[in-house]
Protein backbone atom coordinates (compact mmCIF):
# COMPACT_ATOMS: atom_id res chain seq x y z
CA UNK A 1 0.00 0.00 0.00
CA UNK A 2 2.77 2.44 -0.78
CA UNK A 3 1.98 5.90 -2.07
CA UNK A 4 1.52 6.06 -5.79
CA UNK A 5 2.74 9.17 -7.53
CA UNK A 6 1.72 9.89 -11.08
CA UNK A 7 2.50 13.32 -12.40
CA UNK A 8 0.18 15.64 -10.58
CA UNK A 9 -1.66 13.45 -8.10
CA UNK A 10 -0.90 10.77 -5.58
CA UNK A 11 -2.92 8.17 -3.74
CA UNK A 12 -2.49 7.68 0.02
CA UNK A 13 -4.09 5.00 2.16
CA UNK A 14 -6.16 6.16 5.13
CA UNK A 15 -6.43 2.91 7.06
CA UNK A 16 -7.67 -0.26 5.31
CA UNK A 17 -11.08 1.05 4.17
CA UNK A 18 -10.37 4.48 2.66
CA UNK A 19 -7.91 6.07 0.31
CA UNK A 20 -7.27 9.69 -0.52
CA UNK A 21 -6.44 10.97 -4.00
CA UNK A 22 -4.42 14.15 -3.42
CA UNK A 23 -3.82 16.97 -5.88
CA UNK A 24 -1.66 20.07 -5.45
CA UNK A 25 -1.69 21.40 -1.90
CA UNK A 26 -3.41 24.74 -2.39
CA UNK A 27 -6.85 26.38 -2.42
CA UNK A 28 -7.32 26.94 -6.14
CA UNK A 29 -10.38 26.58 -8.41
CA UNK A 30 -8.32 24.68 -11.02
CA UNK A 31 -7.14 22.11 -8.46
CA UNK A 32 -10.64 21.89 -6.99
CA UNK A 33 -12.13 21.30 -10.47
CA UNK A 34 -9.85 18.29 -10.91
CA UNK A 35 -10.85 16.86 -7.55
CA UNK A 36 -14.56 17.29 -8.34
CA UNK A 37 -14.16 15.79 -11.83
CA UNK A 38 -12.30 12.74 -10.49
CA UNK A 39 -14.91 12.32 -7.73
CA UNK A 40 -17.71 12.43 -10.32
CA UNK A 41 -15.90 9.92 -12.53
CA UNK A 42 -15.40 7.49 -9.62
CA UNK A 43 -19.02 7.94 -8.56
CA UNK A 44 -20.19 7.43 -12.15
CA UNK A 45 -18.11 4.28 -12.61
CA UNK A 46 -20.16 2.59 -9.85
CA UNK A 47 -17.21 0.47 -8.72
CA UNK A 48 -18.26 -2.54 -6.63
CA UNK A 49 -17.37 -2.12 -2.96
CA UNK A 50 -17.13 1.71 -3.03
CA UNK A 51 -19.30 3.12 -0.21
CA UNK A 52 -18.78 6.89 -0.43
CA UNK A 53 -16.83 9.38 -2.54
CA UNK A 54 -16.00 12.73 -0.96
CA UNK A 55 -14.36 15.58 -2.87
CA UNK A 56 -12.72 18.28 -0.74
CA UNK A 57 -10.63 21.39 -1.59
CA UNK A 58 -7.75 19.45 -3.11
CA UNK A 59 -8.43 15.76 -2.60
CA UNK A 60 -10.97 12.99 -3.03
CA UNK A 61 -11.64 10.44 -0.31
CA UNK A 62 -12.87 7.05 -1.52
CA UNK A 63 -14.44 4.87 1.19
CA UNK A 64 -14.60 1.19 0.32
CA UNK A 65 -15.34 -2.24 1.74
CA UNK A 66 -11.96 -4.04 1.76
CA UNK A 67 -13.72 -7.41 1.61
CA UNK A 68 -15.34 -6.50 -1.72
CA UNK A 69 -12.47 -4.69 -3.42
CA UNK A 70 -8.88 -4.02 -2.50
CA UNK A 71 -6.50 -1.11 -2.52
CA UNK A 72 -4.50 -2.16 -5.59
CA UNK A 73 -7.56 -2.94 -7.71
CA UNK A 74 -9.16 0.34 -6.70
CA UNK A 75 -6.03 2.35 -7.52
CA UNK A 76 -5.93 0.77 -11.01
CA UNK A 77 -9.56 1.79 -11.54
CA UNK A 78 -8.88 5.29 -10.21
CA UNK A 79 -6.02 5.73 -12.62
CA UNK A 80 -8.33 4.74 -15.47
CA UNK A 81 -10.96 7.25 -14.32
CA UNK A 82 -8.42 10.05 -13.94
CA UNK A 83 -7.49 9.68 -17.65
CA UNK A 84 -10.99 10.64 -18.69
CA UNK A 85 -11.77 14.21 -19.62
CA UNK A 86 -13.19 16.30 -16.79
CA UNK A 87 -16.93 15.80 -16.45
CA UNK A 88 -19.44 18.57 -15.86
CA UNK A 89 -18.88 20.66 -12.79
CA UNK A 90 -20.60 23.92 -11.97
CA UNK A 91 -18.36 26.05 -14.14
CA UNK A 92 -20.23 27.86 -16.87
CA UNK A 93 -23.62 27.44 -15.22
CA UNK A 94 -25.28 30.67 -14.02
CA UNK A 95 -24.57 31.27 -10.33
CA UNK A 96 -27.13 30.43 -7.67
CA UNK A 97 -28.31 33.80 -6.27
CA UNK A 98 -28.77 33.97 -2.49
CA UNK A 99 -30.41 36.95 -0.72
CA UNK A 100 -28.69 38.24 2.43
CA UNK A 101 -29.85 40.80 4.98
CA UNK A 102 -26.49 42.25 6.02
CA UNK A 103 -25.47 43.83 9.32
CA UNK A 104 -27.49 44.71 12.43
CA UNK A 105 -28.50 41.85 14.73
CA UNK A 106 -28.03 39.42 11.83
CA UNK A 107 -24.41 40.44 11.21
CA UNK A 108 -22.82 41.47 14.51
CA UNK A 109 -19.31 41.27 13.01
CA UNK A 110 -19.99 43.48 9.97
CA UNK A 111 -18.47 46.54 11.73
CA UNK A 112 -15.31 44.53 12.53
CA UNK A 113 -15.04 43.26 8.95
CA UNK A 114 -15.43 46.82 7.62
CA UNK A 115 -12.81 48.02 10.07
CA UNK A 116 -10.49 45.17 8.95
CA UNK A 117 -10.81 46.54 5.39
CA UNK A 118 -10.63 50.19 6.54
CA UNK A 119 -13.90 50.90 4.74
CA UNK A 120 -17.58 51.57 5.43
CA UNK A 121 -20.04 48.76 6.12
CA UNK A 122 -21.76 49.56 2.82
CA UNK A 123 -18.49 49.08 0.93
CA UNK A 124 -17.83 45.77 2.72
CA UNK A 125 -21.33 44.56 1.74
CA UNK A 126 -20.75 45.65 -1.83
CA UNK A 127 -17.52 43.65 -2.00
CA UNK A 128 -19.04 40.52 -0.40
CA UNK A 129 -22.09 40.66 -2.67
CA UNK A 130 -20.09 41.66 -5.72
CA UNK A 131 -18.08 38.44 -6.04
CA UNK A 132 -19.07 35.14 -7.62
CA UNK A 133 -17.97 32.36 -5.29
CA UNK A 134 -17.19 28.72 -5.92
CA UNK A 135 -18.39 25.99 -3.60
CA UNK A 136 -15.07 24.24 -2.92
CA UNK A 137 -16.53 21.55 -0.71
CA UNK A 138 -19.48 20.68 1.51
CA UNK A 139 -18.73 19.44 5.02
CA UNK A 140 -18.66 20.22 8.77
CA UNK A 141 -22.43 19.80 9.15
CA UNK A 142 -25.06 18.71 6.59
CA UNK A 143 -25.23 21.23 3.75
CA UNK A 144 -22.45 23.57 4.94
CA UNK A 145 -20.75 24.86 1.77
CA UNK A 146 -17.19 26.15 2.01
CA UNK A 147 -17.16 28.99 -0.55
CA UNK A 148 -14.39 31.23 -1.82
CA UNK A 149 -12.44 33.16 -2.71
CA UNK A 150 -13.32 36.16 -0.53
CA UNK A 151 -11.72 39.47 -1.63
CA UNK A 152 -8.54 40.04 0.43
CA UNK A 153 -9.82 43.43 1.63
CA UNK A 154 -12.64 41.82 3.68
CA UNK A 155 -10.95 38.44 4.39
CA UNK A 156 -10.97 38.91 8.18
CA UNK A 157 -9.64 35.92 10.16
CA UNK A 158 -11.96 33.80 12.30
CA UNK A 159 -12.45 34.58 16.00
CA UNK A 160 -9.92 33.11 18.43
CA UNK A 161 -12.81 31.89 20.58
CA UNK A 162 -15.83 30.54 18.66
CA UNK A 163 -19.36 31.67 19.57
CA UNK A 164 -21.31 28.97 21.39
CA UNK A 165 -24.41 29.41 19.21
CA UNK A 166 -24.71 30.74 15.68
CA UNK A 167 -28.31 30.93 14.39
CA UNK A 168 -29.19 29.01 11.21
CA UNK A 169 -28.95 31.06 8.01
CA UNK A 170 -26.11 33.22 9.32
CA UNK A 171 -23.57 34.20 6.65
CA UNK A 172 -19.95 34.32 7.79
CA UNK A 173 -16.41 35.00 6.64
CA UNK A 174 -13.25 33.19 7.75
CA UNK A 175 -10.24 34.50 5.82
CA UNK A 176 -10.77 33.75 2.13
CA UNK A 177 -13.74 31.49 2.91
CA UNK A 178 -17.42 32.41 3.19
CA UNK A 179 -20.39 30.23 4.11
CA UNK A 180 -23.92 29.90 5.48
CA UNK A 181 -24.58 28.06 8.76
CA UNK A 182 -27.38 25.58 7.86
CA UNK A 183 -28.21 24.73 11.48
CA UNK A 184 -27.62 26.23 14.89
CA UNK A 185 -24.06 25.23 15.79
CA UNK A 186 -21.04 26.73 17.52
CA UNK A 187 -19.02 28.84 15.09
CA UNK A 188 -15.91 30.98 14.93
CA UNK A 189 -16.55 32.81 11.66
CA UNK A 190 -17.11 36.59 11.33
CA UNK A 191 -20.91 36.93 11.12
CA UNK A 192 -22.00 39.54 8.56
CA UNK A 193 -25.65 38.80 7.76
CA UNK A 194 -28.44 36.27 7.49
CA UNK A 195 -30.28 34.60 4.61
CA UNK A 196 -33.87 33.32 4.62
CA UNK A 197 -32.72 30.52 2.27
CA UNK A 198 -32.13 27.09 3.85
CA UNK A 199 -28.96 25.37 2.57
CA UNK A 200 -30.25 22.07 4.02
CA UNK A 201 -33.72 20.79 4.74
CA UNK A 202 -34.16 17.02 5.08
CA UNK A 203 -37.90 17.37 4.38
CA UNK A 204 -37.39 18.97 0.93
CA UNK A 205 -37.32 16.69 -2.15
CA UNK A 206 -33.86 18.15 -2.89
CA UNK A 207 -32.50 18.33 0.64
CA UNK A 208 -29.27 20.13 -0.29
CA UNK A 209 -29.09 23.52 -1.98
CA UNK A 210 -25.42 23.38 -2.98
CA UNK A 211 -22.78 20.91 -4.01
CA UNK A 212 -19.06 21.13 -4.66
CA UNK A 213 -18.34 22.98 -7.91
CA UNK A 214 -21.45 25.21 -7.83
CA UNK A 215 -21.18 28.96 -8.39
CA UNK A 216 -22.91 31.26 -5.87
CA UNK A 217 -23.61 35.00 -5.76
CA UNK A 218 -25.04 36.88 -2.77
CA UNK A 219 -27.28 39.93 -3.09
CA UNK A 220 -28.33 42.39 -0.39
CA UNK A 221 -31.93 42.61 0.80
CA UNK A 222 -33.46 44.73 3.58
CA UNK A 223 -35.19 43.50 6.72
CA UNK A 224 -38.68 43.91 5.22
CA UNK A 225 -37.73 41.70 2.29
CA UNK A 226 -36.03 39.20 4.64
CA UNK A 227 -39.21 38.92 6.74
CA UNK A 228 -41.29 38.50 3.59
CA UNK A 229 -39.08 35.63 2.38
CA UNK A 230 -38.93 33.86 5.75
Amino acid at each position, binding site marked *: *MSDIFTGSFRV*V*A*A*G*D*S*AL*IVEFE*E*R*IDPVVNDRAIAV*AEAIQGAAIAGV*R*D*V*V*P*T*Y*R*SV*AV*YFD*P*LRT*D*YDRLVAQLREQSQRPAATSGVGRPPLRIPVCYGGDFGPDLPAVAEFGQMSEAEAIQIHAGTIYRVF*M*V*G*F*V*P*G*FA*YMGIVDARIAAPRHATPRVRVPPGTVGIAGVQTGIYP*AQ*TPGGWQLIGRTPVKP*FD*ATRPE*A*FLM*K*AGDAVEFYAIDRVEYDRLT
Partner: protein
Amino acid sequence: MSAARVVKAGMLTTIQDRGRWGLQSRGVPVAGPMDPVSHRLANVLVGNDPDAATLEVTLLGPQLDFEDERVIAVTGAEFEILVDGKPMPMHAPFIVPAESQLRFGARLRGARAYIAIAGGIVVPATLGSRSTHLISGMGGIDGRPIRAGDRLPLGDPGCTRRSAAALAQPVVQLPEGGAVIRVLAGPQREYFSDDALNVLQSAPYAIGQNSDRMGFRLTGPRLSHSRGADIISDATPLGVLQVPASGQPILLMADRQTAGGYPKIATVITADISVAGQLCPGDTITFRVCTPGEAIAALIAQERALMAVET
Protein backbone atom coordinates in the same frame (compact mmCIF):
# COMPACT_ATOMS: atom_id res chain seq x y z
CA MET B 1 -48.10 -1.61 14.46
CA SER B 2 -46.71 -3.20 17.59
CA ALA B 3 -44.16 -1.36 19.69
CA ALA B 4 -41.82 -1.46 22.63
CA ARG B 5 -42.49 1.21 25.24
CA VAL B 6 -39.59 2.91 26.96
CA VAL B 7 -39.99 2.83 30.75
CA LYS B 8 -36.44 3.96 31.52
CA ALA B 9 -34.06 5.15 28.83
CA GLY B 10 -30.69 4.34 30.39
CA MET B 11 -27.76 6.73 30.20
CA LEU B 12 -27.55 7.21 26.42
CA THR B 13 -29.59 4.81 24.32
CA THR B 14 -29.81 5.57 20.60
CA ILE B 15 -31.39 3.93 17.57
CA GLN B 16 -28.69 2.82 15.10
CA ASP B 17 -28.60 0.97 11.80
CA ARG B 18 -25.38 0.64 9.78
CA GLY B 19 -25.22 4.37 9.24
CA ARG B 20 -26.02 7.08 6.72
CA TRP B 21 -23.51 6.23 3.99
CA GLY B 22 -23.19 7.97 0.63
CA LEU B 23 -23.83 11.59 1.61
CA GLN B 24 -20.53 12.66 3.17
CA SER B 25 -19.95 14.81 0.06
CA ARG B 26 -22.97 16.83 1.27
CA GLY B 27 -21.60 17.11 4.79
CA VAL B 28 -23.82 14.39 6.26
CA PRO B 29 -22.00 12.39 8.97
CA VAL B 30 -22.27 8.59 8.78
CA ALA B 31 -23.19 7.86 12.46
CA GLY B 32 -24.10 4.16 12.96
CA PRO B 33 -23.01 1.79 15.74
CA MET B 34 -19.82 2.42 17.75
CA ASP B 35 -19.31 -1.39 17.74
CA PRO B 36 -20.46 -2.42 14.24
CA VAL B 37 -19.62 -6.11 14.75
CA SER B 38 -21.85 -6.49 17.82
CA HIS B 39 -24.62 -4.54 16.05
CA ARG B 40 -24.54 -6.94 13.11
CA LEU B 41 -24.31 -9.97 15.38
CA ALA B 42 -27.38 -8.91 17.36
CA ASN B 43 -29.37 -8.66 14.12
CA VAL B 44 -28.08 -12.02 12.87
CA LEU B 45 -29.10 -13.74 16.11
CA VAL B 46 -32.75 -12.68 15.75
CA GLY B 47 -32.85 -13.27 11.99
CA ASN B 48 -32.94 -9.58 11.00
CA ASP B 49 -31.30 -7.99 8.00
CA PRO B 50 -27.80 -6.86 9.16
CA ASP B 51 -28.82 -3.26 8.43
CA ALA B 52 -31.90 -3.34 10.70
CA ALA B 53 -32.03 -0.68 13.41
CA THR B 54 -31.08 -1.77 16.93
CA LEU B 55 -30.72 0.07 20.22
CA GLU B 56 -27.20 1.06 21.24
CA VAL B 57 -27.00 1.07 25.05
CA THR B 58 -24.27 3.06 26.79
CA LEU B 59 -22.99 2.08 30.27
CA LEU B 60 -26.45 2.05 31.88
CA GLY B 61 -29.21 0.01 30.23
CA PRO B 62 -32.89 0.76 29.60
CA GLN B 63 -36.15 -0.81 30.71
CA LEU B 64 -38.58 -1.69 27.91
CA ASP B 65 -42.17 -3.00 27.93
CA PHE B 66 -43.11 -5.20 24.96
CA GLU B 67 -46.66 -5.21 23.58
CA ASP B 68 -46.36 -8.50 21.72
CA GLU B 69 -44.08 -11.52 21.85
CA ARG B 70 -40.68 -10.88 20.27
CA VAL B 71 -37.41 -12.71 19.78
CA ILE B 72 -34.58 -10.47 20.89
CA ALA B 73 -30.81 -10.70 21.40
CA VAL B 74 -28.32 -8.56 23.30
CA THR B 75 -24.67 -8.42 22.26
CA GLY B 76 -21.61 -6.25 22.91
CA ALA B 77 -20.94 -5.06 26.44
CA GLU B 78 -21.87 -7.63 29.09
CA PHE B 79 -24.85 -6.74 31.26
CA GLU B 80 -27.23 -8.63 33.52
CA ILE B 81 -30.40 -8.97 31.46
CA LEU B 82 -33.76 -9.77 32.98
CA VAL B 83 -37.18 -10.52 31.47
CA ASP B 84 -39.86 -10.13 34.13
CA GLY B 85 -37.11 -10.65 36.69
CA LYS B 86 -35.69 -13.83 35.13
CA PRO B 87 -32.03 -13.74 33.98
CA MET B 88 -31.46 -14.16 30.23
CA PRO B 89 -28.26 -15.00 28.32
CA MET B 90 -26.17 -12.52 26.33
CA HIS B 91 -25.17 -13.34 22.73
CA ALA B 92 -28.15 -15.65 22.22
CA PRO B 93 -31.70 -15.18 20.95
CA PHE B 94 -34.50 -15.45 23.53
CA ILE B 95 -38.22 -14.81 23.68
CA VAL B 96 -39.78 -11.85 25.43
CA PRO B 97 -43.46 -12.79 25.97
CA ALA B 98 -46.28 -10.33 25.23
CA GLU B 99 -46.88 -7.72 27.93
CA SER B 100 -43.55 -8.41 29.64
CA GLN B 101 -40.60 -6.27 30.57
CA LEU B 102 -36.94 -6.33 29.52
CA ARG B 103 -34.66 -4.81 32.11
CA PHE B 104 -30.91 -4.22 32.20
CA GLY B 105 -29.07 -4.82 35.47
CA ALA B 106 -25.42 -4.37 36.36
CA ARG B 107 -22.79 -3.85 33.67
CA LEU B 108 -19.93 -6.32 33.89
CA ARG B 109 -17.58 -5.43 30.99
CA GLY B 110 -17.46 -3.20 27.92
CA ALA B 111 -19.26 0.09 27.28
CA ARG B 112 -21.95 -0.48 24.65
CA ALA B 113 -24.55 -3.21 24.22
CA TYR B 114 -26.88 -3.74 21.25
CA ILE B 115 -30.49 -4.85 21.55
CA ALA B 116 -31.85 -6.38 18.34
CA ILE B 117 -35.57 -7.07 18.20
CA ALA B 118 -36.97 -9.41 15.52
CA GLY B 119 -38.52 -7.19 12.86
CA GLY B 120 -36.23 -4.29 13.77
CA ILE B 121 -37.08 -0.81 15.02
CA VAL B 122 -38.86 0.89 12.15
CA VAL B 123 -38.80 4.62 12.92
CA PRO B 124 -38.94 6.63 9.65
CA ALA B 125 -35.59 6.84 7.84
CA THR B 126 -33.95 10.22 7.25
CA LEU B 127 -31.83 10.46 4.09
CA GLY B 128 -31.86 6.68 3.78
CA SER B 129 -30.95 5.72 7.35
CA ARG B 130 -32.54 5.37 10.79
CA SER B 131 -29.24 6.03 12.60
CA THR B 132 -29.38 8.75 15.24
CA HIS B 133 -26.84 11.53 14.75
CA LEU B 134 -27.01 13.57 17.93
CA ILE B 135 -25.23 16.75 16.81
CA SER B 136 -27.24 17.31 13.64
CA GLY B 137 -30.41 16.03 15.33
CA MET B 138 -31.08 13.52 12.60
CA GLY B 139 -32.53 9.99 12.56
CA GLY B 140 -33.86 7.83 15.41
CA ILE B 141 -36.66 9.68 17.22
CA ASP B 142 -36.31 13.42 16.42
CA GLY B 143 -32.53 12.99 16.28
CA ARG B 144 -32.21 12.45 20.04
CA PRO B 145 -31.59 9.53 22.42
CA ILE B 146 -34.70 7.58 23.40
CA ARG B 147 -36.47 8.67 26.58
CA ALA B 148 -39.09 7.38 28.98
CA GLY B 149 -42.52 7.42 27.36
CA ASP B 150 -41.24 6.85 23.79
CA ARG B 151 -42.95 4.18 21.72
CA LEU B 152 -40.48 2.31 19.50
CA PRO B 153 -42.35 1.02 16.42
CA LEU B 154 -41.35 -2.56 15.58
CA GLY B 155 -41.30 -4.17 12.13
CA ASP B 156 -43.06 -7.35 11.08
CA PRO B 157 -41.18 -10.27 12.66
CA GLY B 158 -42.86 -12.69 10.26
CA CYS B 159 -40.32 -11.99 7.55
CA THR B 160 -37.37 -12.72 9.84
CA ARG B 161 -35.80 -16.06 10.53
CA ARG B 162 -34.71 -16.84 14.06
CA SER B 163 -31.15 -18.04 14.15
CA ALA B 164 -30.78 -21.32 16.01
CA ALA B 165 -27.25 -20.54 16.99
CA ALA B 166 -26.07 -19.14 20.26
CA LEU B 167 -22.52 -17.87 20.26
CA ALA B 168 -19.74 -20.24 21.31
CA GLN B 169 -17.37 -17.35 21.96
CA PRO B 170 -17.61 -13.59 21.59
CA VAL B 171 -16.49 -12.10 18.25
CA VAL B 172 -15.47 -8.84 19.92
CA GLN B 173 -13.01 -9.36 22.78
CA LEU B 174 -14.31 -7.02 25.46
CA PRO B 175 -11.64 -4.76 26.92
CA GLU B 176 -11.23 -4.47 30.68
CA GLY B 177 -9.95 -1.00 31.46
CA GLY B 178 -7.92 -0.79 28.29
CA ALA B 179 -7.18 -2.31 24.90
CA VAL B 180 -4.42 -2.68 22.36
CA ILE B 181 -5.65 -1.08 19.15
CA ARG B 182 -3.86 -1.60 15.84
CA VAL B 183 -3.36 1.30 13.44
CA LEU B 184 -1.96 1.90 9.96
CA ALA B 185 0.24 4.95 9.43
CA GLY B 186 -1.28 7.87 7.52
CA PRO B 187 -2.91 9.57 5.71
CA GLN B 188 -0.75 12.57 6.83
CA ARG B 189 2.15 10.79 8.51
CA GLU B 190 4.61 13.24 6.83
CA TYR B 191 3.16 16.13 8.87
CA PHE B 192 4.78 14.67 12.00
CA SER B 193 8.32 14.29 13.31
CA ASP B 194 10.26 11.15 12.31
CA ASP B 195 9.84 9.53 15.71
CA ALA B 196 6.12 10.34 16.06
CA LEU B 197 4.93 6.79 15.32
CA ASN B 198 7.32 5.45 17.99
CA VAL B 199 6.04 8.06 20.44
CA LEU B 200 2.46 7.01 19.64
CA GLN B 201 3.31 3.42 20.64
CA SER B 202 5.50 4.31 23.63
CA ALA B 203 2.82 4.43 26.36
CA PRO B 204 -0.96 4.08 26.76
CA TYR B 205 -3.30 7.03 26.07
CA ALA B 206 -6.15 7.77 28.48
CA ILE B 207 -9.65 8.45 27.13
CA GLY B 208 -10.84 11.83 28.47
CA GLN B 209 -14.18 12.59 30.13
CA ASN B 210 -15.24 14.85 27.24
CA SER B 211 -15.25 11.89 24.86
CA ASP B 212 -18.45 10.84 23.09
CA ARG B 213 -19.81 9.12 19.99
CA MET B 214 -18.07 11.75 17.87
CA GLY B 215 -14.58 11.05 19.16
CA PHE B 216 -12.27 10.10 22.00
CA ARG B 217 -10.04 12.89 23.32
CA LEU B 218 -6.81 11.18 24.33
CA THR B 219 -4.10 12.15 26.80
CA GLY B 220 -0.66 10.60 26.55
CA PRO B 221 2.76 11.01 24.93
CA ARG B 222 2.80 14.29 22.99
CA LEU B 223 3.04 13.96 19.19
CA SER B 224 5.18 16.59 17.42
CA HIS B 225 4.17 18.18 14.14
CA SER B 226 6.88 18.88 11.58
CA ARG B 227 4.88 21.13 9.23
CA GLY B 228 2.38 22.84 11.52
CA ALA B 229 -0.98 21.67 12.83
CA ASP B 230 -3.15 22.97 9.99
CA ILE B 231 -3.94 21.32 6.68
CA ILE B 232 -6.38 22.29 3.95
CA SER B 233 -9.58 20.64 5.25
CA ASP B 234 -10.01 17.12 3.95
CA ALA B 235 -12.02 13.98 4.68
CA THR B 236 -12.03 12.37 8.14
CA PRO B 237 -12.42 8.58 7.95
CA LEU B 238 -13.70 6.40 10.80
CA GLY B 239 -10.93 5.58 13.28
CA VAL B 240 -8.56 8.29 12.16
CA LEU B 241 -6.26 9.94 14.75
CA GLN B 242 -6.28 13.68 14.15
CA VAL B 243 -3.73 15.75 16.05
CA PRO B 244 -4.38 19.44 16.82
CA ALA B 245 -1.60 21.83 17.90
CA SER B 246 -1.68 20.44 21.48
CA GLY B 247 -0.07 17.21 20.20
CA GLN B 248 -2.78 15.18 21.97
CA PRO B 249 -4.67 13.01 19.45
CA ILE B 250 -8.43 12.73 18.98
CA LEU B 251 -9.74 9.35 17.77
CA LEU B 252 -12.69 10.00 15.45
CA MET B 253 -15.59 7.60 15.95
CA ALA B 254 -19.11 6.98 14.59
CA ASP B 255 -20.59 10.51 14.84
CA ARG B 256 -17.44 12.23 13.47
CA GLN B 257 -17.79 15.24 11.19
CA THR B 258 -17.18 14.57 7.46
CA ALA B 259 -14.08 16.78 7.14
CA GLY B 260 -11.48 18.47 9.29
CA GLY B 261 -8.40 20.63 9.16
CA TYR B 262 -5.95 18.80 11.47
CA PRO B 263 -3.22 16.44 10.23
CA LYS B 264 -3.93 12.74 10.81
CA ILE B 265 -1.05 10.53 11.87
CA ALA B 266 -2.67 7.08 11.74
CA THR B 267 -5.95 5.21 11.28
CA VAL B 268 -7.39 2.35 13.37
CA ILE B 269 -7.79 -0.85 11.34
CA THR B 270 -11.40 -1.86 10.60
CA ALA B 271 -11.07 -5.11 12.59
CA ASP B 272 -10.27 -3.13 15.78
CA ILE B 273 -12.99 -0.45 15.48
CA SER B 274 -15.47 -2.54 17.46
CA VAL B 275 -13.04 -3.05 20.35
CA ALA B 276 -12.42 0.71 20.42
CA GLY B 277 -16.20 1.19 20.50
CA GLN B 278 -16.32 -0.81 23.73
CA LEU B 279 -14.08 1.69 25.55
CA CYS B 280 -15.27 4.61 27.63
CA PRO B 281 -13.79 7.62 29.48
CA GLY B 282 -11.16 6.50 32.00
CA ASP B 283 -10.08 3.50 29.87
CA THR B 284 -6.75 3.46 28.05
CA ILE B 285 -5.64 2.66 24.52
CA THR B 286 -2.23 1.22 23.65
CA PHE B 287 -1.60 1.80 19.96
CA ARG B 288 0.35 -0.63 17.82
CA VAL B 289 1.30 0.11 14.21
CA CYS B 290 0.67 -2.90 11.98
CA THR B 291 0.95 -3.74 8.29
CA PRO B 292 -1.83 -3.59 5.68
CA GLY B 293 -1.56 -7.37 5.37
CA GLU B 294 -2.17 -7.82 9.10
CA ALA B 295 -5.13 -5.45 8.96
CA ILE B 296 -6.84 -7.37 6.17
CA ALA B 297 -6.04 -10.78 7.72
CA ALA B 298 -7.64 -9.64 10.98
CA LEU B 299 -10.72 -8.41 9.09
CA ILE B 300 -11.07 -11.70 7.19
CA ALA B 301 -10.80 -13.66 10.47
CA GLN B 302 -13.52 -11.46 11.98
CA GLU B 303 -15.75 -11.92 8.92
CA ARG B 304 -15.32 -15.72 9.11
CA ALA B 305 -16.38 -15.70 12.77
CA LEU B 306 -19.48 -13.66 11.87
CA MET B 307 -20.35 -15.87 8.90
CA ALA B 308 -20.08 -18.97 11.10
CA VAL B 309 -22.94 -17.54 13.19
CA GLU B 310 -24.98 -16.60 10.11
CA THR B 311 -25.04 -20.11 8.64
